[in-house]
């Protein structure tokens, strides 16, 4: 019973159920093969890195709807600087990450200083960035799609594979471990939960809530840039429209992973399982041989079930000892 009280309990059960479902319907069709497992793990990782970051931000009581466009900023920066202007690859990667930090600070500072809802602020950022990227790309290159090839260490780091297991899985697991440590073991983690749990209480207790929120916005932006770089490394192509819907996919994964939408509750391990469920469902449908058109409906249903069961688990948790 004590295990059911963990924030990730619902997510783990969800993953097992969804996994069993697809093993049943697609187990013999390559879903469980090395390549199949590598595929859905890679898919889960791509969602998982962003979900992890947005999960932490939601725990701190805010949202980030600009993650899709920031992913594209990461990809486009590398595509433009290295693919078009032939900068050294590492310089473009450094610039992309720096832009991530700046966008995160921008979102965070506006939210903290004005008290506006982050939903609106980051939605504005999303449109600003997509519009600006389209404008800049056409103005500078006359194109909206660019090509860039990753080589050497950068290729191994962002797009390497070991027996079909892509490097992004290592990024995902490493970041999950790091965030687990921060959330459960550090003072800053305590402050993240408190800031989202009750802002006034946290502030009165001396928690630097503005610093907490801004740091979390920087994390979501940098994580999005990282995913943008990984996508670019894998596909060698960059589009100014890349990453659309990513901001919603990661929120779905975080919520399926047990993060409470109103803030103050959730865990990195839970988000890991939420993302895994997403990855399995996404590619599982492909392996069943069914029409993948059904994926979104499946995902919507999954989200609803996850939200209902998580809220039930939480009530149970607070009702008894």
């Amino acid at each position, binding site marked *: 019973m004590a295990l059911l009280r963990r924030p990730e309990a619902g997510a783990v059960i969800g993953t097992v159920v969804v996994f069993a479902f697809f093993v049943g319907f697609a187990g013999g069709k390559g879903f469980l093969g090395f390549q199949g497992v590598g595929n859905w793990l890679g898919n889960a990782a791509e969602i998982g890195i962003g979900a992890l970051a947005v999960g932490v931000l939601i725990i701190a009581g805010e949202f980030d709807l600009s993650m899709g466009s920031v992913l594209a900023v990461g990809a486009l920066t590398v595509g433009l600087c290295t693919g078009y202007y032939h900068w050294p690859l590492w310089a473009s990667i450094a610039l992309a990450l720096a832009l991530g930090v700046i966008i995160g600070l921008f979102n965070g500072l506006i939210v903290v200083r004005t008290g506006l809802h982050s939903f609106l602020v980051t939605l504005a950022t999303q449109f600003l960035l997509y519009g600006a990227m389209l404008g800049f790309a056409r103005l500078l290159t006359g194109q909206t799609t660019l090509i860039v090839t990753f080589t050497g260490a950068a290729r191994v780091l962002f797009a390497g594979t070991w027996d079909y297991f892509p490097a992004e899985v290592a990024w995902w697991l490493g970041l999950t471990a790091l965030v687990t*440590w921060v959330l459960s*073991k*550090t*003072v800053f*983690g*305590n402050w993240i*939960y*408190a800031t989202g*749990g*009750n802002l*006034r*209480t*946290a502030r*009165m*207790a*001396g*928690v630097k809530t503005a610093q907490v929120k801004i740091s979390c916005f920087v994390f979501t932006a940098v994580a999005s840039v990282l995913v943008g770089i990984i996508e670019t490394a894998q596909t060698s192509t960059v589009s100014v429209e890349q990453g659309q819907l990513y901001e919603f996919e990661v929120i779905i994964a975080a919520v399926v992973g047990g993060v*409470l939408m109103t803030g*103050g*509750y959730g865990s990195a391990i839970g988000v890991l399982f939420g993302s895994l469920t997403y990855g399995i469902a996404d590619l599982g449908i492909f392996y069943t041989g069914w029409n993948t058109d059904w994926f979104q409906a499946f995902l919507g249903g999954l989200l609803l079930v996850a939200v209902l069961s998580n809220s039930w688990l*939480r009530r149970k*948790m*607070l*009702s*008894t*000892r």
Partner: protein
Amino acid sequence: MTSPPTTTSSSAPVLALRSATKSFLGFNALTDVTCELRAGVVHCLIGDNGAGKSTIVQILSGLAQPTSGTIEVEGQVTTFRSPADALRDGIATVYQEQPILPLMSVARNFFLGVEPRKRLGPISWFDSQRANTACMAELSSLGLRRVQDGRQLAGTLSGGEREALVIARAVFLGAKVLILDEPTAALGVKEAGLVLRLVSNARARGIATLLITHNANHAMSIGDEFTVLIHGQVADHFYRGERTQLQLLELMAGGEQLDFLSEP
């Protein structure tokens, strides 16, 4: 004014409000109110709704400034421009709605903002073991014994226990003055008893307490000194044993006789 009995300390009050008047748009919420809080004394502030109790809480906790009159901390005149000023002078105010974080553990609530750390070179982390042990020791020494494990979620605590957690935290953080705004108003008999026991234990540690209540029973059971407010003025001020509960009830009703209650 009656003179203090010999049992109470005669040194300068830890916190005092002197001749305070507070007007809102020409209406006096408080008129010439004096109220002293001494170390190890529970001072009950009693009055009906609208008598001005909340205004006094606001002034002493730094949320509002008196229109005239002064605040003294250990004999020194001072002004509280914000709740932070009052907190800095060791004045902790506990409001009726307990500001706890239900989905965080008791120990994490207790140590929020002042977490004990462990350190290895440049890396530091939350010392949860020390937090749990210290929090449990503090809670049980103040009389909250039902909570056994600091890792329990604070949301599982009852109303009285939450109140107790907040009071215990304030005491642990070195509050010299506790201002408790209607701490027992929403609680059942047993729960109220828990909070009153905690107040009594805080008193034994030499903390000055201002207990705001409209429950004469609770006031009489724990108070050492009493101030009764009617329409923003001090209607009576007395020490333990100088009034009966019935006299107090009549005063609280605005000096009106409560005899009609027994009429058919």
